[in-house]
Structures are given as structure tokens and as C-alpha cells.
């Protein structure tokens, strides 16, 4: 008996392979998106940690300095006065390959004679061989991995070129870094090892060290060394551990990662709806069969088991496929993730994904769990229903319709709950719970909305398009048990599209406005940097004097921006010239402009809104700045709007900065011209002044454009996710509608028999699906707006600390509506085509 049962179950999907396939694809897509984001994030993070670990080696402690690093004299004192032999100086920087595509290469300047205890894999050949000795004796000598050498086209002993800070630099490969460990080998890729003197020269860091790595034993001698170190370290030099340092760097991307994860979870929610939809549909379709089986004496438990097994097979296959798809997708997303991190946060060189246990595990659990949860309700339903009722479809539809208002109220309550949670609990996790409650609530309200919309549309449809349209409207309502979930899934996907679209538009609007306010100079001069929106690369000496001396210039504003370490994530420090003319470039979130500027020029600082929110700082508080003179608590006199970095910005006059930091460098210049001057001509003039220096000279317009371009680039990944969510939804709606319509072959055959021609059948089917698309689209409009509101005013503010303007963009709504309807219509084509092709008599033959 059981065998027959299994066979009957097996036969179902075999007869409808496309339906099973779509269910599998639905699960797979949901899982794929989630794990792809996870893997891409994890790969970028691991690549960063691994390369950090490789360049940190076995150091127990690290000395780091201010913006200008550590004076190298400190190293002499550590060696000669403290006598800590296990100390190694490091000068770091980045180069770009001249290959296509370009590679970012990390330059690690070391003292080979100090390396042995720290990074044995970087000084191969027993510490002295393998080209390490040549590092000391041969100018511009480098070591690199075989992979990097291949990428750069470098051969031993031959010069090869890279770009450092915009300038071409020749170097000579004198040895290859080789290791048997695959992970280390990967960390060695894109790494250029060179002597510290060469690195200092290449990177313009003569006289300074970026850090000093130390190995301090944990015994009494170590304690003595620490005490001694404390007495010789200048105030700006700090001792930290490599872990702390790497952590505070990776924490910079926390908000970014959380947001990506949230978006990927949205895709999973859509995916869950798909699974739920597919499984519900599979049960609903089989109600007659199940009823028959029940009548034949198959128990509830056996029915439930049957359904569960079938669902599990779909879940397992879908999850497996999803893992495979996700890995492929991760490779595609990795580039986008890495580019955003490089644009905004820090340099990470990562070209291949790293598969780790957790993202895959998460994918498997989510895929199986979501499938089973989605499966549980229809299974329970199928098993529970008395056999007599099961056989009657109408009973089920009636039941569904009775459920609609209940569901609607529940949905409203859920949405309300979501709103309150987001409004009242200012934590990122709560916000996401709130957003989820809002989304699910909206899904539950969708059936009510469907009934309501159909009631509204029906008279109009009949009047405009006649009987067929009226039939279509009625059909949508009468088959609610089959349509509701599909419509809800499509609605959520479309709402996500609207929400993300509005969020990006709002962000863009705000930033463009802000750029117009703040970017005022006519021409900007800066040094090329790898991290696009960070300007900590110093300008070559003399640029300021030369530019200031040019005729036809009103004034030149100086900027020095550096990353300032704090106890947690680093903060951007900007020192600048501020004259009265510049006051209008600031928009204040807090503080009185009349009081801000006198205090700013005296001893106070101003901070950006994200910093204020993140550290709960207000006007009147102080911010403790780690300076080369030690910690200095500076009063905060104003909080300005800033959308440059969510890490936060502190601003101070450049004169004061130079008192507190031994850093005479400038990062950029803002050149102001007389009102009628041609700024593009001045760009050319300034470029001509420095024919051999790598300088970025940009007009106001170019800078603004490139800033917006970077912004758009950072949203590229958001757009991809949005697209993926839409695809998932489309697959869902396609699966649901196709299945639903095909199930009605007999009904359509009847209609054909009583005179409906194929053209009218097409009309009927497409009207139905189109109407469902319309409902989904209409409901998605307010829901998407609410989600956008949540994203813009709650989630963005909590994770990034930004106050954004809401950009109401009608075209986003229009696009969403059209997308919903077109997706639904497209989903109707296959069934319409198939149904119209079938001869009525054939369609009427039941079995």
C-alpha cells in the first residue's frame, strides 16, 4: 500500500516537471542570493584579515603613529636604548599595476635584517637567500609571488613598471615568494616586498615608519620592556595589538555588511514566499487526489509524510542548486563588494572568493528551514481537512475567503507592530525585525486588497472590455487560494524595488545637494589615492606654494585629511582653512553658526552628524583626539551634515592641526577664482605647472561628477540585489500563474466548447494574470513607500547616521507598477499559449 502511495506521489511531479522545477528554482534563487552576499562579504573580510596577518606576521604588539607615522628615530631607541631586538620597522603603501584589469598591489617595505622573527614567509631562503639580500643592495628591488609576477609580466632581474600615487615607478624582481600553504600563497598575491629605504622613497615617507612590529614576551622581561617603552615613546606613538588594529579596520565596514545582509534576507523572504506558494499550490492542486486517498483509508499522518517527503526533496534539490548558484553569484558580487570597500573604507585586494563553512551552513539551514516552514502550513492543512470536504474545491475556496479578513486584520496588526518597533527601538536589529513585520503584514493584507481592488475594478472592466474581463476579475477572486500567495510574493518584490529605488534616489538627492553646498572652490588639487573618497595621500611638497603664486587666483584653501585612530573605529580628521566666505558651505544639524566660528578659530572642533550619532556627542561635549602631543579633549561647538563617510569627521583649523601633529603635509587644495574666470583653463594651467608630478587637478564640476560617480558605484551592488529580488519574484509569479492556469485546462476546454475562441481565451488568461499584477503593483506602492521610509529614516540613520531628504520620484512608482503588470502578463503567456492550442475535446477529457 505504502509503495503505491509513494508511486502516486512520485507521479505527480513527474507529470508536471516544470512545476517541480520552478519550485526548485524558487528555493535555489532565495538561497543563492543570501549565500552569495554572505560569501562575498566574508571573502573580502578574510582577504583583508589574511593579508593583515601576513604582513603583521608574529608580532604581539604594534606601534602606530599619527598621520605622519612614527619618526624613525623611535626605532633606534627601541633597538639601542630599550634593547628590544624583536622589533621590525614597516612602511606600507599601495601601487597599481599597469595591466588590464588593474590590480591593486600592496607595498610592504621591510628591513630584511629585522624580519626573521616576524614574517619568515616573506624572507625565504633561510632569511638571506631568495633575493632577500638583493633587497638591500639593489635599487628598487622587489620580491613577489609567482602569481603576481605572472600578472605583472615580471621576470627575474628585469625592470617592470607599476603606478604609485599616479606616477610610474620602475622596479626589479629579484626573487619569488613561495610557500606550500595555499592560504598564505593567496595572501602573498598582490604583495610587493621591498626594502624599507625603497618603500620610503617610493611612497614619499622618508624619515617615517608606518608602524613598528614588536614581539614582547609575556614574562618579567616583557613587562620591563613595556615599562621602558612607555618612557621612550613620543606622545603620538601608541601601542596596540595587531588584532585590535585589524578589528577596528574591519569594523569600519560593519554597517555596509549589515545592510547587504539585510537586502539579501529580503531576497530570502521573497524566496520563502515562493516556496510557500509552490508548496501550497502543490497541496491545493492535489486536494482531490488527497481526498481520494483519505477516502481509501490513507491516514492523516501518511498524507503529511507524503507531502513532507515531497517538499523535502524539493527543498534539498533547491538548496543544493542554490548553493551552487550562490557560489557563482558570489564571485560576481565580490568585485562589487570589494570596489565599494576600496572606494569608501580601506584597500582590500581580493580576486577570488573564499568558501568557508558558515555562509554555506547558513544557506543550507535557511533553505531547508524556509522550505519546511513554508511547507508546514499547507501540509497541515491537507492532512487535517476531512476527506469529504477535501474533495470539494469550493469548500476550500470558501474557507480561504473566510480567512481573508482575519488575515487582513492580522496583517494590519503586524504592520503596526513593525512601525512601532522601528519608531521606538533605535537598534539596527529591532529595525530589521520591524521591517520584516511590516513586510509580512503587508503580505497578509494583500488578499483583502485583492478582493477590494477586484470589487472596484469589476464594473469598470465589464463596461470597458466586456464579459471576458468580468470573468477574469471574478476568477481572480474565486481562485484566491491559489492566487493570493503569488500576488503577495510579487507585491513584496515590487515593494522592495520601490523601497530600494526611493532610498537610492533619496540618498543621491541628499548627497548631490550637499556636494553643491560644500564643494565651492573652482579647482581642486589633490594627490591620487587608491581609496577613492579618502584624501590622505599627501600632496608633493611645493605644490601649495606654486599654486598660490599663480596669477589669476583669488585664494587657495588648504586641506589635510587623515584617519584618526580612536578606541573603536577610526575617524576622519579634516584640517582646513576656513574664512568667512566658507561659512555658507556648512549645514548645521546642531549648533549656532554665530557662536561656532569664533569658537572654532579659538580651540573648538566641529564634528559630522554620523560621528555625533555614533558616539552620542552633542555641542558642549568634548572629543578626545589622539595627537602627537598626547590625548587632547577638544570642545565640540557644532555638528554639521556630512555624507562623505559614516565613520564620522572631526574638523579643525589647519594651524591648530599643525600644532598638535608633526605633519606639515597637505592633502588637497581648493582654488578659488574670480567670478568670471574659466576654471577649466585654470585646471590646464595648474597641470602645466607640474608636468612630472602625479596630481589630480579637477574643476568643481568634474569633482562633483566624480563624487556622484563613486556614490553610484557604491549603489551598484544594491541595484544588483534589487534586480535579483525582482527575478526571484518573477520566477515565483511565473511558476504560480503557469501552474494555476494549466490546472484549469478542463475549465477552459469547457469555455472553448461553449464558444470561446482562442483569441478570447488569450484575453481571459492574460486579463487574469494582468489583474493580479495590477493588484500586486497597487498594493506595492504604499508598502514600498513605507519600506523606503523605514530604510531612509530608521535604518540608514541607525547604521550610518545620515539625515536624508526623502526623494519622491514618480517614475519609480510608475516603473514598479509597469514591472508588476508586465511580469504577470509574461507569466500568463505560456499557459495561454498552451491552453489555446489544446483542442477543446481533448481538454475536456478528464483522464
Amino acid at each position: 500500500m505504502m509503495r503505491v502511495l509513494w508511486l502516486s506521489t512520485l507521479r505527480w511531479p513527474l507529470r508536471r516537471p516544470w512545476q517541480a522545477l520552478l519550485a526548485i528554482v524558487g528555493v535555489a534563487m532565495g538561497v543563492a542570493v543570501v549565500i552569495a552576499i554572505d560569501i562575498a562579504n566574508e571573502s573580502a573580510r578574510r582577504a583583508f584579515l589574511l593579508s593583515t596577518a601576513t604582513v603583521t606576521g608574529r608580532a604581539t604588539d604594534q606601534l602606530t603613529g599619527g598621520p605622519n607615522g612614527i619618526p624613525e628615530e623611535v626605532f633606534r631607541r627601541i633597538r639601542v636604548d630599550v634593547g628590544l631586538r624583536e622589533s621590525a620597522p614597516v612602511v606600507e603603501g599601495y601601487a597599481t599595476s599597469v595591466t588590464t584589469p588593474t590590480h591593486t598591489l600592496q607595498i610592504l617595505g621591510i628591513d630584511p635584517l629585522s624580519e626573521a622573527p616576524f614574517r619568515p614567509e616573506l624572507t625565504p631562503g633561510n632569511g638571506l637567500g631568495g633575493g632577500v639580500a638583493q633587497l638591500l643592495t639593489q635599487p628598487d628591488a622587489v620580491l613577489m609571488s609567482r602569481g603576481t609576477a605572472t600578472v605583472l609580466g615580471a621576470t627575474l632581474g628585469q625592470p617592470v613598471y607599476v603606478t604609485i600615487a599616479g606616477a610610474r615607478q620602475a622596479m626589479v624582481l629579484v626573487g619569488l615568494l613561495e610557500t606550500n600553504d595555499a592560504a598564505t600563497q593567496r595572501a602573498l598575491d598582490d604583495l610587493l616586498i621591498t626594502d624599507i629605504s625603497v618603500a620610503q622613497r617610493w611612497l614619499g615617507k622618508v624619515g617615517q615608519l608606518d608602524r613598528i612590529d614588536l614581539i614582547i614576551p609575556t614574562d618579567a622581561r616583557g613587562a620591563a620592556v613595556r615599562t621602558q617603552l612607555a618612557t621612550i615613546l613620543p606622545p603620538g606613538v601608541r601601542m596596540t595589538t595587531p588584532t585590535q588594529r585589524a578589528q577596528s579596520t574591519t569594523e569600519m565596514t560593519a554597517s555596509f555588511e549589515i545592510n547587504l545582509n539585510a537586502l539579501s534576507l529580503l531576497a530570502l523572504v521573497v524566496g520563502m514566499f515562493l516556496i510557500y506558494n509552490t508548496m501550497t499550490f502543490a497541496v491545493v492542486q492535489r486536494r482531490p487526489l488527497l481526498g481520494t486517498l483519505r477516502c481509501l483509508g490513507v491516514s492523516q499522518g501518511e498524507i503529511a509524510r507524503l507531502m513532507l517527503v515531497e517538499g523535502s526533496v524539493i527543498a534539498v534539490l533547491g538548496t543544493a542548486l542554490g548553493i551552487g548558484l550562490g557560489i557563482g553569484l558570489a564571485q560576481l558580487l565580490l568585485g562589487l563588494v570589494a570596489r565599494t570597500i576600496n572606494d569608501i573604507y580601506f584597500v582590500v585586494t581580493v580576486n577570488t572568493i573564499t568558501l568557508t563553512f558558515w555562509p554555506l551552513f547558513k544557506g543550507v539551514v535557511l533553505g531547508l528551514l524556509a522550505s519546511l516552514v513554508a511547507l508546514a502550513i499547507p501540509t497541515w492543512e491537507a492532512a487535517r481537512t476531512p476527506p469529504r470536504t477535501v474533495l470539494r474545491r469550493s469548500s476550500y475556496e470558501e474557507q480561504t475567503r473566510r480567512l481573508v479578513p482575519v488575515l487582513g486584520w492580522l496583517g494590519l496588526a503586524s504592520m503596526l507592530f513593525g512601525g512601532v518597533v522601528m519608531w521606538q527601538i533605535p537598534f539596527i536589529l529591532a529595525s530589521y525585525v520591524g521591517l520584516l513585520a511590516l513586510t509580512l503584514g503587508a503580505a497578509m493584507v494583500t488578499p483583502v486588497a485583492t478582493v477590494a481592488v477586484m470589487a472596484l475594478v469589476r464594473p469598470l472592466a465589464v463596461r470597458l472590455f466586456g464579459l471576458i474581463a468580468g470573468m477574469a476579475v471574478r476568477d481572480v477572486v474565486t481562485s484566491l487560494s491559489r492566487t493570493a500567495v503569488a500576488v503577495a510574493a510579487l507585491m513584496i518584490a515590487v515593494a522592495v524595488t520601490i523601497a530600494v529605488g526611493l532610498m537610492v534616489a533619496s540618498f543621491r538627492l541628499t548627497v548631490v545637494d550637499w556636494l553643491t553646498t560644500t564643494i565651492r572652490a573652482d579647482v581642486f588639487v589633490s594627490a591620487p589615492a587608491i581609496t577613492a573618497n579618502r584624501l590622505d595621500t599627501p600632496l608633493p611638497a611645493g605644490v601649495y606654494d606654486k599654486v598660490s603664486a599663480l596669477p589669476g587666483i583669488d585664494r587657495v584653501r588648504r586641506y589635510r585629511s587623515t584617519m584618526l585612530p580612536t578606541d573603536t573605529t577610526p575617524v576622519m580628521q579634516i584640517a582646513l582653512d576656513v574664512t568667512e566666505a566658507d561659512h555658507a558651505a556648512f549645514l548645521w544639524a546642531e549648533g549656532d553658526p554665530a557662536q561656532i566660528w569664533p569658537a572654532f578659530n579659538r580651540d573648538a572642533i566641529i564634528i559630522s552628524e554620523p560621528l555625533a550619532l555614533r558616539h552620542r556627542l552633542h555641542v558642549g561635549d568634548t572629543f578626545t583626539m589622539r595627537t602627537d602631543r598626547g590625548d587632547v579633549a577638544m570642545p565640540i561647538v557644532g555638528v554639521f551634515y556630512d555624507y562623505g563617510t559614516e565613520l564620522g569627521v572631526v574638523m579643525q583649523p589647519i594651524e591648530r592641526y599643525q600644532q598638535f601633529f608633526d605633519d606639515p603635509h597637505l592633502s588637497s587644495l581648493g582654488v578659488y577664482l574670480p567670478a568670471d574666470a574659466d576654471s577649466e583653463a585654470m585646471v590646464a594651467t595648474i597641470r602645466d605647472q607640474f608636468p612630472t608630478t602625479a596630481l589630480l587637478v579637477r574643476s568643481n564640476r568634474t569633482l562633483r561628477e566624480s563624487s556622484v560617480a563613486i556614490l553610484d558605484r557604491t549603489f551598484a551592488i544594491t541595484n544588483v540585489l534589487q534586480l535579483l529580488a525582482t527575478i526571484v519574484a518573477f520566477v515565483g509569479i511565473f511558476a504560480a500563474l503557469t501552474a494555476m492556469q494549466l490546472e484549469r485546462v478542463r475549465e477552459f476546454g469547457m469555455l472553448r466548447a461553449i464558444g470561446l475562441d482562442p483569441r478570447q481565451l488569450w484575453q481571459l488568461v492574460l486579463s487574469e494574470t494582468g489583474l493580479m499584477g495590477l493588484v500586486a503593483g497597487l498594493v506595492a506602492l504604499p508598502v514600498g513607500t513605507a519600506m523606503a521610509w523605514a530604510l531612509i529614516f530608521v535604518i540608514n540613520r541607525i547604521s550610518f547616521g545620515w539625515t536624508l531628504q526623502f526623494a519622491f520620484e514618480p517614475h519609480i512608482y510608475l516603473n514598479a507598477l509597469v514591472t508588476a503588470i508586465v511580469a504577470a502578463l509574461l507569466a500568463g503567456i505560456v499557459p495561454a499559449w498552451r491552453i489555446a492550442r489544446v483542442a477543446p475535446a481533448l481538454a475536456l477529457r478528464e483522464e
Partner: protein
Amino acid sequence: MKSFWIWLSCVWLCVACGAQPAAPLQTQLTLAESLNRTDMTGFLRADKPRQFSFPADHGPHDGYAVEWWYYTGNLRDVSGREFGYQFTIFRSAFRPSTVNASVAPQSAWDGATAYMAHLAVTDVAGQQFFAYERFNRDALGIAGAQAAPFKVWLDDWQVASSTPDAAQMQLRAAHGAVALDLQLDNRMPPVLQGNAGLSQKSAGVGNASYYYSVPRMATTGTLTIAGQAYQVTGTSWMDREWSTSALAADQVGWDWFAVHLDDGSDVMLYHLRRRDGSIDSYSGGSWRDASGKVTTLSSADIGLQPVGQWTSPHTGATYPASWQMTITRLGLDVTVTPLLADQELAVTVRYWEGAVAVKGQRANQPIQGNGYLEMTGYADGGTRP
């Protein structure tokens, strides 16, 4: 005069320029290669006798490719517990200081000179031997040498004099389990080795070094082993040598003896071993009697006979277990026995150098003493020519 092996490890920095990358350096280097490949153009050569002047000559001689400050000593604490120490700083130029590098030095790390230092301590009663090695370049003052006031240092390892005449030298070095803090009395006139300080090592003008010794420096101070400080007194020997190239291709190793005898005389002997096992005729030494009179010894004057064998448990290299030293001209016939068999230095280029006891006869009178023995060119495995 010291080990060519150590000398060799000093020249690696120059030699490496011509070596093929991506293979362990030591395996590629034979003495001949190093000498042939190294471009010594631009360096000064020890090609004629010179006028020595002290304390100026305690300082560095930058025109020459390599140079070393070599201290060995036999010490005892109040209870008679015996110790030995070796402290050496080698200077090795990457390129002649007179020749400009292709890149104008902008960075303080663009130095043209590397320093290497060895610190070894022998605890005879404890049967312990400690040896450490360090490298630095002459950047930022993390290593260097200067004449006035005299100082030669690498990190916090240093020998320095606080007075302009360098009459007293303070030797301070600590690493791992051991620490030395010694006062060396430098009031005896140096012994100029070879031909008035020009020590020919092989055929050809310039294949020589400038070489002087201060054989008997009264030494007091503190020697610490694993936290236990010993107040020690004894005698130290300072060897100073600088050159640009000295050895011939078939000279594969040497044995060097620095001996304090209890009649107040000091002996320095070395013999250069050739590839075929014979002793090179450029071997030699010197004898200074208690009155300070110096006798130069040629290879014909000295007899050095290895006795027995000791195989290193660390490298598997086999060294002579002890030596029979005869100087017929002086009627000296003594055995030289290591105070500890295992005084092999586990450093980049392995060699044996340690404290020895000397016992025998001079002119049929019993005589004894102590000193230091260095044996090089025995260790196998990549470091043998």
C-alpha cells in the same frame, strides 16, 4: 685574523648581487665563487704596510670591504667557576663608500654597510654554551663604529670607551639567557701581526688584511646566565682586522688559536687548510713574551696536529677534539683542549669557537694557560665549499 667563513658570511651581502635569486644563498656560495664574483672595484686593498695609529685605528676603516672587532675571553668568578665569552662585530660594505649608488641616498636606510654580531658564552661548570647572532645595517645609528670616542655597536650590543684614548673598554651585550657587562683594560700596546700589521693570506698583492691584536686585556665585570649574575675576572683578547679580499680559492678552512700562557706570554697561531688537506704556507702567527717582545712566526715555525674527533650533534660536522701545538723555535709543546666539547655556534654560517685549556711544556718546564680556539670549514650541509 679570523675565520674566512665568518668573513664569507659578511661578504654575502655583496656577493648576493650576482647570485641567482630563488635558491638558498649559502648553497650557491663557494669561496671561489664569492671571490670571483664579488666586484671589489672601488674598495681599498691591504697591499702594503701601513702606519698604525691608536686609538684612531680602533675605529672603522670604511674604504675596505670587511672589518671586524673580535673579543674573546677566559673568565672566572670568585669561587673559581670558569667561563668563556666571544663577542664579535663584523662590518661588511654593500658597495664602496666612494662609489655613488645609482639612487641618491634619500632614506636613512639607504646605508652602504651591514653589521653582523655574534655573542657566545661558555659555562664550563654548567656544561652550557650559548650563541646568538644579529644583523643590522648602519642606518639611524642602530649599528655602527666610531673612533673617538671609541664605540662599535649593533642594537644594544656594544663595546665603547668613555675616554678619548680608549684605555678602558666597556663591553655590554645581552641576549636570551646571557648577559655580559665587562670592563676591558686596554693599556698594553697592540701586537701588529704579519709584516708590521700587513697579514698576507694568499698569493697576490692585496690578498692580505691589516691585522693587530691586543692579546691580554685584564677583564672584570658581571656575567649573567639565566638570571644568575657572576662577578668575574679574567683575560680578554681583542683581534682587529680589515681587508677587501684575502683568501685563495683552494683555502677551505682554518684553525685559529689565541693562547694566554701562565709565564705571561701570548701566542696567536693560525693555519689555513687547503682543499687537498695540506696546510697553506701563508699560515703563521706571533709570540709575545712577558716583556712585550714580539716574535713573528711563519708556517715553518709552527706545528698544529689535530688529536681525536668530535662530531657535532647539531650539524653532524666532525671537528678535531683537541690539538697538539708545537713551536720548535720556542721549545713549546702543549695540548690545546676545549673546556667544553660543544662550542659550535648555531649561526648562519656554522663554526666552532670556544674556550680552551692549554697544558704542556716550554723548554722542558711545565707550562699551562687558557685561550680561545676557532675551527672553521668543518660544518657540512650547504655551508661547505
